[in-house]
């Protein structure tokens, strides 16, 4: 019997969080402390404190936000609001909207370049990928891709950008320096999310129409395997030698081994799981569940759900939504680091 999800049982949540707080070794990279979850139905952004296991803030966004990406230093979150056709910039520290700008006709998928301040926005209706300069907040380029591009991913070295062209059943590969499309790879039916591994060796698309994941060899530019997963797969996260795939209609996360490509487990999560991302150390994967209104944590060692955190209505978190700790934030800094010389009068 699936876990009951209709009422978020607070006691259970708290108990689960208590057990999940232990178990990170000092050698791991600093885990993200916050998740930024776009709530499309509520038209808001939930900022979840991952240590406390609860939403610390919910801010109004406008335009029904869906897609999200994070600046590499964790200072800003970039959201797409398809209904208002905007890119919305959120100051992560201030927890406030810092800027907004019109981009295309149907902005949805979004990703950030690791080094050069470019934000890439896929336009569902115009079949283009836009490049926005994050410093000046101006559209600086666009490139034609396939029909209804949805997910966007950038290789860790920043050399290539991938779009999942949903209605063309393909992935477009774009050279980021010249911002031109250098190739396409045919995948399964209706690819939605696309994820690249840390080495830039392989890419994975979740194919909503054919209930499978396509595995692409990036250096060969070829489809090398197809893995059957649950019903209506939406997005893929990679951690601990496994792929974690959200199955929207299934209400599950399918886990398969990255070497053998064999499915090892199907995990029951909240209804309509959508956005999924692994923390950099790989110890946890976080899943936004659209119908259940939760952000859920999966322990990648035990493959069990260890936290179920209530967020706003209709969370999608389509993209990278875990805030990188970044060079600027100190681990668990005291909340009141002085921002001004102490001699100044308090307001």
């Amino acid at each position: 019997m699936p876990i009951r999800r209709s009422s978020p049982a607070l006691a259970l949540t708290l108990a689960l969080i208590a057990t999940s707080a232990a178990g990170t070794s000092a050698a791991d990279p600093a885990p993200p402390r916050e998740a930024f979850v776009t709530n499309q139905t509520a038209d808001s952004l939930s900022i979840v404190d991952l240590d406390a296991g609860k939403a610390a803030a919910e801010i109004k966004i406008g335009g029904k936000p869906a897609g999200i990406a994070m600046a590499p230093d964790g200072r800003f979150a970039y959201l797409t609001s398809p209904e208002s056709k905007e890119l919305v910039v959120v100051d992560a520290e201030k927890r406030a909207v810092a800027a907004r700008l019109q981009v295309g006709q149907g902005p949805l998928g979004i990703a950030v370049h690791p080094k050069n301040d470019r934000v890439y926005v896929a336009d569902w209706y115009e079949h283009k990928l836009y490049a926005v300069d994050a410093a000046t907040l101006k559209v600086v380029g666009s490139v034609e891709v396939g029909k209804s591009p949805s997910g966007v991913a950038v290789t860790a070295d920043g050399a290539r950008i991938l779009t999942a062209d949903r209605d063309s059943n393909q992935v477009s590969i774009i050279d980021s320096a010249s911002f031109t499309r250098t190739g396409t790879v045919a995948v399964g039916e209706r690819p939605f999310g696309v994820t690249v591994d840390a080495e830039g060796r392989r890419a994975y698309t979740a194919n909503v129409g054919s209930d499978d994941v396509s595995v692409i060899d990036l250096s060969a530019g070829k489809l090398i395997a197809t893995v059957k997963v649950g019903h209506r797969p939406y997005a893929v996260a990679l951690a601990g030698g496994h792929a974690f795939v959200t199955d929207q209609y299934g209400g599950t996360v399918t886990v398969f081994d990255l070497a053998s490509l064999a499915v090892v487990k199907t995990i029951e999560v909240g209804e309509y799981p959508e956005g999924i991302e692994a923390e950099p150390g790989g110890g946890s994967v976080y899943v936004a569940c659209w119908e259940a209104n939760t952000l859920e944590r999966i322990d990648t060692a035990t493959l069990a759900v260890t936290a179920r955190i209530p967020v706003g209505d209709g969370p999608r978190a389509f993209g990278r939504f875990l805030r990188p700790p970044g060079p600027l934030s100190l681990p668990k800094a005291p909340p009141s680091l002085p921002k001004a010389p102490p001699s100044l009068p308090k307001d």
Partner: protein
Amino acid sequence: MLRLVASFLALVCLWPLAATAHGPTRQKVVETVEINAPADEVWAVVGNFQDMSWHPAFKKTEGTGGNDVGATRILTLEGGGQIFEKLSKYNAEGKSLAYEITEVDVKVVPVTNYSASITVTPDGDKSKVEWKSAFYRGYVNNDPPPELSDEAAVKAITGVFQSGLEALKKKLEGG
């Protein structure tokens, strides 16, 4: 010149209103009802995927596959038109089932990519029935006509859920 500026300002002020119907946004409708009957009795009615006669909007249910995942049914509406559906999950122990529309004319129901679930939860001698759905509007591009807008889709499904749950309650409470 001033007039031009004024009309431009008026346009800017109106713009957010016009923009709310745009974009690929999935809609959600959830309706619940409390029924003064044991959960087993309620489930005996709503748990039969092949019989939607408890809902006043549907004249006829025809289907194959019983209550097995993958079973199909065709619902014929009182007002004409048909909805083709497939059972995607069935949990007798948890008294929950999920299904999706595989085919429907948006003139019959103004939705696309529709899926839904019905769950019966016992509450002593009573029960709670929760009917949840996820769908997109009938018009998949920007600028939908009013009859295929998000609002039209939500209104249609809310109507189907509310009238169905009300009839179910009446039937089971013997009213």
